[in-house]
Structures are given as structure tokens and as C-alpha cells.
């Protein structure tokens, strides 16, 4: 008798599964309500990442092409992967005539970055922050090395470490 109950029980369980999948099929077939995928390249315009999303490290610039990075190297020291390099230059103050160290280039190797966020936490002046862009693909990995301060940019006067 267990032979027959095996068959009926088996068929019943199979039909139970088919009910669930069938339900989703007909809902999606007629209304597309349960579809969970996004049509990605088409929704680029409306796609908004969350505020805290860690896409890449960017440096904030104001309209006068000024930033807050003093080049203190806190981020360079905090980075576990060596993804950040700070290059100095000598800058002569026109008023006093004294030469002073200033930031030349804030180099960011995106290819080495693990998006851990320690640099941004370490930054005493909040000069660097998270950018939301996640389209990092390039055909050449040298393009992954970025200079974060824009050419000709200056430090906002009065920014202290």
C-alpha cells in the first residue's frame, strides 16, 4: 500500500511546486509585477546609488577650483594597500618669499583600492570623499591611476591640518 501512497504523495508534492512556479509565471506573463531584474543600461538616467555607496575616492572642489587637501599624507599612511600617493612640491609664498611644502599631486590607484574607507576617515580636513560612480572599466589599466586634485587647483586658504 505504501507503493501507491508513494506515488500519490510524490505527485502531490510535485504539483505543489508547480503551483508556486506557475503562479509566478502567470503573474509575470500578464503583468510583469514579480520581475525583480532591472534593465540596467536603460535605467542609467534614473539609477541613483545610495549616499553612502563607496564607488571611488574623489576630491571635492569648489567653483574656484579649490580643494581642502593640504597634503598631510594621513590617507597615504592609513591606506592598507598603498593605493594613495602624495607628491609634494616647493611653493614660494609671493608675499614673504619663503619656500613652503605644498601638495603637487594626490595620486589614487583605483586598481589597488579595496574601498575600505580608512583614508576618508583619516583625512583631517575632509578633503576626500566617496564618489558614487561605479563604471570603472577601462581598456588600459594605466587609466586606473588617477590624479585627484584637478590641474591648477589650490588649497582653500585657511585650511589647517
Amino acid at each position, binding site marked *: 500500500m505504501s507503493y501507491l501512497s508513494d*506515488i500519490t504523495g510524490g505527485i502531490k508534492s*510535485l504539483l505543489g*511546486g*508547480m503551483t508556486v*512556479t*506557475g503562479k*509566478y*509565471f502567470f503573474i*509575470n*506573463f500578464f503583468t*510583469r509585477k*514579480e*520581475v*525583480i*531584474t532591472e*534593465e540596467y543600461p536603460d535605467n542609467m538616467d534614473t539609477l541613483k546609488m545610495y549616499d553612502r555607496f563607496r564607488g571611488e575616492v574623489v576630491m571635492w572642489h569648489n567653483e574656484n577650483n579649490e580643494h581642502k587637501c593640504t597634503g598631510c599624507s594621513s590617507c597615504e599612511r592609513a591606506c592598507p594597500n598603498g593605493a594613495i600617493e602624495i607628491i609634494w612640491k616647493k611653493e614660494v609664498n609671493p608675499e614673504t618669499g619663503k619656500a613652503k611644502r605644498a601638495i603637487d599631486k594626490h595620486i589614487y590607484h583605483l586598481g589597488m583600492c579595496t574601498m575600505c574607507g580608512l583614508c576618508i576617515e583619516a583625512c583631517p580636513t575632509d578633503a576626500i570623499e566617496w564618489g558614487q560612480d561605479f563604471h570603472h572599466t577601462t581598456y588600459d589599466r594605466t587609466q586606473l591611476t588617477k590624479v585627484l586634485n584637478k590641474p591648477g587647483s589650490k588649497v582653500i586658504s585657511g585650511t589647517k591640518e
Partner: protein
Amino acid sequence: MIILSNFSNIHQWLLGLIQNAVATRVVELTIIALAYLAAFALIGLLLVLAERRIAAFFQLRLGPNRVGPWGLFQTVADALKLVSKELTGTVKADKFLYGLAPYFVIITALVSMSIIPFSKEVQVFDINIGIFFFISVSSLGVIGIFLAGWSSNNKYSLIGGMRTGIQMVSYELSVGMVVVTMVILSGTLQLSQIVALQQHTWFIFQGHVSAIIAFMVMMIASTAETNRTPFDLVEAESELGAGFHTEYSGMNFAYFFLSEFMNMFLSASIIVVLFFGGWLSPFGITAGIPFMGLFWFILKVSVVIFIFMWFRWTFPRLRIDQILTLEWKYLLPINMVNIVLMAALVWLGLTF
């Protein structure tokens, strides 16, 4: 002997055009062959597309919808890609058998398509042992799969091929016995006759209990025959990569792929002919209109194919020993009892 009575009008017209009986026959055959090849490719491509879209809806996705309206040309694009691909092979493969295997599979599918009664007018080969012919020809396809697995010189392919052998031999039996059951009811092997006998009531209602059991067994056995989930051990991508066609690329792969879908279509056609009155319309509502049979046939086949797809996108895969258990310990005894039951029903005149 090929019976072309259904095309007699065209035959007369061609005869008048060419004025030579033999040449007319040859031209006629060529035209029919080309038409069937075209239909074959078209049905295959549409089924692949349908499978992908339907699978997507089952899986909360949208499916291919980029190439053409509703993604209609997706499979055409895929086919073009496959045609342009290089035919690769393994180093120590048995080159002759390796090349032969896909043709075995596709030609058997094509040949068995010839006996399918698409409608009253469209049937190429109405042989009097039609259903027997179908079973014998379609069972040759397994040789192709077996050859592919054997000749690829790949252990995964070999295991896939071996599994095919076991599975096909077992489930042919079930298909055969279901056919025997239905032949007891119909009393003929000729497909056009089988359809004609269902003029008033479909066989699934004529044979009631016995026919319904036979139908359920046939659905299971056909799924196994066409190597679809839950019986897709032959391919079993999570176990064997791609199974027997792991080493095939380009068009050779496409032949396997296409014939797999064609086999599903053929199985569904046979089910429709045996149980649901083939091209007959329900209650004869469109009996007078010519070529409406084609519509009803395609509709019925689509429904059966949809159930196959429903199976595929719901169930997990069985293990090889469980497949054999299911066939030899469940389906075969059920079939045997069912044959007796059907015979008794027919003998006692309890059929409708």
C-alpha cells in the same frame, strides 16, 4: 512508398507544368523537403526563443527582449553567431564518428517529423504503420548522442553518453507501452486514422481512466526521452559541464541543440495525436474551414510543450539510479496493468 494524396492539387499542377511523371515527382519531393527543412529550422528557433522567455518569467526575469520586437530575432542572431563559429574538436577524438554524431541526431528528428499530421491537408508520409515508424526512427537518435559522448575523448562526455544509453533504452519501453495501450483503443497504427477516429471524442475521454494514466506516463516518459529536466542527466550542467556535447562548438553544437527542441516538439505532437485528437477542433467548431487544423494542432502542441517547460523550470534533477527505479519499478508495472485495463475496457465496451 510515399503517399502524397494530400498534395494532389499541387501534384496535378506540377505535372501540367513539367509534363514528365518522374521529374514531377523529383521536383515535388525537393519542394517538400525544402519546406520541411525550413519549417524545422523555424520551429526550432521559435521553440528556443519561447523556452528562454518562458524560463525568464518563471524565474522572475524578463528574458531576451533586445533583438527585434519582443526579442523575436534573438535566436536568429544566436544561430548566425553559431554558424560563424569555428568547429573545434579534441585532439584524440575519433574524427569520423565525432563529425557524424550531430547528423545522426538531426536527421532522425527530421525523418520522424515527416509522419506528423499537421492537419488534414499537411502530412507528407501517411504510412499505415505510422506510429511504429515514429518510435523506431526516433529511437535511432540515441545512437548519435552515444557516438558524440564516445568519440569526444572526454570523460564528462563519455559519462553523459553512457547515461543516455541507459536512460533511452529504459524509457523507450514506456513510450512503446503507452502507444500499445492507445493502439488497443484505436485499432490502427496509421496516424491519420487515429486522428479520424477521434472525430467525436478525443481518446483521452474515450479511454477515460486508462487513457489518463497512459497520458501521465507518456508525459513522464517523453520528458525523459527528450532529455529535459528532471531527466537531463545527459547534460546535467552542474555535474558534467555540458555532458555529451561538451566538446562540440558552432554549428555541430547547434544541431544537437536544435534537435533537442525538435524532439520535444515531436513528442508533444505524438501526445496530441494520441490523446487530444490531433488537428481536430474541439466539438468540431471549425470543421468546415480548410487549414484550420493547422491552427488547432499548433495550439494543442504549444500547450503540451508549455507543460514540458513548466516541468523543466520547476523540478530538480533525478539521480541515475533513481531514474532507473522510476522506470522499472513504477512506470513499467503501471503500464502493464494499464494495458490489461485498457484491453478490458475495450473488450467490455466501456469506452465512450
